[in-house]
Each structure stands twice: as structure tokens, then as C-alpha cells.
């Protein structure tokens, strides 16, 4: 397989770019592997890559029901940041941020990480105080954080609606300069290609339909392409976790909900940062093509339909205009939805399970894209060692049983509120 480099780009240009090899090979499944990862989203692919890269486990298959990039990894609003405050979240997301910073080189694939700065707006003095506490926690962990007062914010982001009659005036913001966006498809393709180069087999159009469990130990999977045996199986199917969990009698603290995203027609450069509104859930950035990318809350009821309903469309449009009335003339070009794995405390699960050699990764809520590198890193460690990495020990499945939930938002066991 060929490395991407300036030299190769040049020589392929001479041949009209018609002879690039495929990024990963199309495969039919073998009868068995050392490890199987179910789900070829960002997390499954990153896990397979780090199993091969960090642990030398290369006889690995990633089984994907659809196509690579068809799940939430290709549907998200691409925000990456590490501005979390609670227990294990702070170091976990910072490790992910550090991996992001070296990812393009590591994968030999341009994931287009753009550290344009992530900002959350404060709409009251109290909110700015809470953000200051968060910033101090981050800095105590060696993570960059800045507090902007009102004047500094309006100097840096002059298009915000600060009219005297605005419903939500601005008191300042918390900023993580290292936060920003990455190209979501490139992350899926980059991990898939890098894993393939290390010998991992990526098998698309292969749905896992059932499991082989013998004596309390996982032995393989039944798929739409036949039986495949494996010593170890890791599940990373995001919004479809409960469907597979049911086949294993695995009790999961997860509900599936739909989250929508929106892109406007392209305009000249306007939005330099990733901006999160502080009065309600709304976030935006500007894509390289010029479209404004908007995101809001989940629709708020259980759903496996990867499409949402109009109340959120309405809500997101209203919030966009509340942030900056100059957005009001923009037309939304596209919107879509993804099936989200919302957990009961708003934090993820990367864990062993009651079934030996079966491992679970899910419950990503709104956080799963930025977590992709660290999730793959720690899930691979958990699978390779049959024990968690220090960064994901707090994300065990049995934390709910023991009352050690990680509820960053403090909203209680209600997935629709996280």
C-alpha cells in the first residue's frame, strides 16, 4: 500500500490520478480471527488500528453492517475539544485532544484538524463564574483555557447580537484555543486505511445478527456473511448498542435518540471559531466550503430513525438568529440525523462485560467524535489486556450499579437531558 506524500502526489498527477490504489482492501470474512470489532464507525476503526499498532494484535476483523463512514462518524458536526470538568472526563478528553494533534502524521492521512478555538458564550455573571471554575479546573490539569470578558468577546466575535433589546446579552466566554473541528469522513477513512495497512481486515456489508457464547465466554458471531469465530469480541455500534445487547442479555443504561445537524448555503468567511451558545444547546462553525454548520439538541424522544422532526429545525433556526441576526437570511441547504447512544449519566462506557472476552464501547451522547482517538486507544488496551486502561477505568459498565456515575451536566438519569 502506498504512502500519501508530496512525491507520490506528483507522480500520480503525471498519470492523471487514475492509478491510486484503494485506501483499504475489500475483503470476504475468514472463518476466524483473534479479535472481532463489531461496528466500523470511528470508534470501531480506531480500536482496530490501535490493537494492531499498540498491541501487535493484527489478526483482527472490523465488521460493518453498512459502509465505512455511513454512521454517526460521518454525520456529526465535527467539534473536537477537551473542556470537561468532572473526574475522569478531564484527562480522557485531553488525551484524545493530544492524539488529535498528531493524528494526521500518525495515520498518514490529512484529517484536517483545524484548531480554530472553541468558545462557549456566557449570558449571565453567574454563568461566567461557573465557566471560570471550569477554566481553573482545566488549567490545573494542564489544559489550555481562557476567560474572555464581554469587551474582549465582542472584539473577537463582532457579529454577535448585542443589541440592547437582545434576549440573551453576553457577559463573556470560556475559550479553548486548541479546540476546533476535524474532517469527519477523513477520520473514518484515515483509520480504516491505517488499520488495513497493519493487516486489519475491514469487512463492509456484514451485519452481526447473533453471538456464539460457550460457558459464559464469547466465541464468535453470526453474521449476514456467515459464522465468524473469535477469541475476543468488542462492540462499538453506537446507537444500535441495545439491539445487540439484547441478543446477549446485556443490561444497558442506554437509550437511542435522534440528533440532527444542518448546513446553510456557502458564504464568505464569517465564523472564525466554533461557537456554542450558553443559554440553550446550539453550536456552530463554518465549513471549508463556506456553509455554516449548525447543531442543537436531540429531538428528545427515543428513536432509531436517522431523521428528525420539525420542532428542532425551528428551534435551531431561532437560536441561530438569536446569536447573530445576520444569519436570518441564510437558507438551510441540507439537514440530516444520526441515531445517538445516550447513556443514563451522559458519559460513555468503555468496559468489560459480564460475558468473558466480550467488551463494550458505547453511550457516547454528544461527545463521541472528539473522543474517537482516546476511545480507540483505551478500548484496544481493554481488549488486549482484559483490563481497562487507567483513562477508562471510570467508564465501566457497572458504575451505575455502584453509584459512581459521571454526570457532567448534573441532569440526573434522563438521557434526553444530557
Amino acid at each position, binding site marked *: 500500500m502506498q504512502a500519501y506524500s508530496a512525491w507520490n502526489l506528483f507522480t500520480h498527477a503525471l498519470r492523471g490520478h487514475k492509478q491510486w490504489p484503494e485506501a483499504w482492501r475489500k475483503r470476504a470474512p475468514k472463518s476466524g480471527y483473534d479479535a472481532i470489532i463489531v461496528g466500523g464507525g470511528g470508534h470501531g476503526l480506531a480500536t482496530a488500528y490501535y490493537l494492531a499498532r499498540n498491541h501487535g494484535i493484527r489478526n483482527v476483523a472490523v465488521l460493518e453492517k453498512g459502509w465505512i463512514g455511513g454512521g454517526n462518524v460521518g454525520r456529526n458536526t465535527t467539534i473536537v475539544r477537551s473542556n470537561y470538568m468532572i473526574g475522569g472526563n478531564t484527562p480522557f478528553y485531553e488525551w484524545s485532544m493530544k492524539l488529535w494533534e498528531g493524528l494526521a502524521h500518525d495515520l498518514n492521512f490529512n484529517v484536517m484538524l483545524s484548531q480554530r478555538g472553541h468558545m462557549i458564550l456566557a449570558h449571565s455573571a453567574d454563568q461566567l463564574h461557573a465557566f471560570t471554575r471550569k477554566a481553573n479546573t482545566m488549567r490545573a490539569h494542564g489544559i489550555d483555557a481562557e476567560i474572555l470578558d464581554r469587551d474582549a468577546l465582542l472584539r473577537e466575535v463582532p457579529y454577535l447580537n448585542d443589541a440592547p433589546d437582545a434576549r440573551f446579552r453576553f457577559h463573556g466566554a470560556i475559550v479553548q484555543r486548541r479546540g476546533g473541528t476535524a474532517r469527519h469522513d477523513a477520520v473514518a477513512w484515515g483509520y480504516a486505511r491505517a488499520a488495513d495497512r497493519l493487516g486489519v481486515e475491514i469487512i463492509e456489508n456484514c451485519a452481526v445478527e447473533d453471538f456464539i457464547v460457550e460457558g459464559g465466554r464469547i466465541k464468535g458471531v453470526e453474521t449476514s456473511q456467515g459464522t465468524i469465530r473469535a477469541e475476543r469480541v468488542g462492540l462499538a455500534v453506537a446507537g444500535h448498542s441495545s439491539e445487540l445487547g439484547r441478543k446477549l442479555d446485556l443490561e444497558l443504561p442506554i*437509550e437511542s435518540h435522534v440528533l440532527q445537524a444542518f448546513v446553510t448555503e456557502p458564504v464568505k468567511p464569517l465564523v472564525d471559531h466554533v461557537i456554542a451558545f450558553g443559554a440553550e444547546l446550539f453550536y456552530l462553525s463554518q465549513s471549508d466550503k463556506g456553509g455554516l454548520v449548525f447543531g442543537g439538541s436531540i429531538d428528545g*424522544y427515543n428513536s432509531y*430513525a436517522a431523521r428528525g*422532526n420539525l*420542532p428542532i429545525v425551528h428551534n435551531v433556526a431561532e437560536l441561530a438568529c438569536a446569536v447573530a441576526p445576520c444569519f436570518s437570511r441564510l437558507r438551510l441547504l441540507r439537514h440530516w440525523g444520526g441515531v445517538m447512544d445516550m447513556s443514563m449519566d451522559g458519559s460513555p462506557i468503555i468496559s468489560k462485560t459480564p460475558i468473558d472476552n466480550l467488551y463494550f464501547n458505547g453511550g457516547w451522547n454528544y461527545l463521541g467524535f472528539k473522543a474517537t482517538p482516546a476511545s480507540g486507544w483505551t478500548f484496544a488496551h481493554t481488549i488486549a489486556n482484559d483490563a481497562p486502561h487507567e483513562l477508562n477505568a471510570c467508564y465501566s459498565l457497572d458504575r451505575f*450499579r455502584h453509584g459512581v456515575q459521571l454526570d457532567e451536566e448534573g441532569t440526573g438519569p434522563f438521557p434526553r437531558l444530557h
Partner: protein
Amino acid sequence: MLRINCPFCGLRDHHEFTYGGDATVERPALSERSMEAWYQYVFVRTNPAGWMQEYWQHTGGCRAWLVVERNTRTHEIGATHLARDRITEVDRG
């Protein structure tokens, strides 16, 4: 667009309702001491892919709590009942 048939108010828009989650989850008696029972009630969900029974409150209307059957794959809405009727049934055992 979701539209729910409220037994009192008729077919009304999604905007008027507030979601209350899985209606098959039952709270243990307050005297229940088993941690397992509370764990199941607070945290474990079946999260069905297909027909589901769920609570909705008609907050923008008569404020009644309803049990609505809805398909989580298609968003199709089926039968709607008053939650109090269902709860009385449960109480009666």
C-alpha cells in the same frame, strides 16, 4: 411530524407535548430495599427498536399524562391511553 391523539383534546401537534420516557418501567414500592430493583428502575432500559409504550404529557393542552404507543423506527403513532387508567390497572395487579 409527530401528532398525538389526546383522549380529551383530539389530534394535536408534537409541540404541545412533553416526553416522559419509557412507560413500561415501574417504580419499586418505596419500602423496596433491594438495590437491584432500584438499579433496574433508575438505569436499565430496554430501548426497543420498533413499537414502544411511552409517557407523554399534554403540557400545552389539558395537562393529562398519556401512554402513547409509538414506533421508534418509523415515528408512527398507534394507540393512546390515559396514564391513570393504566396505573389503576397496575395497582389492581
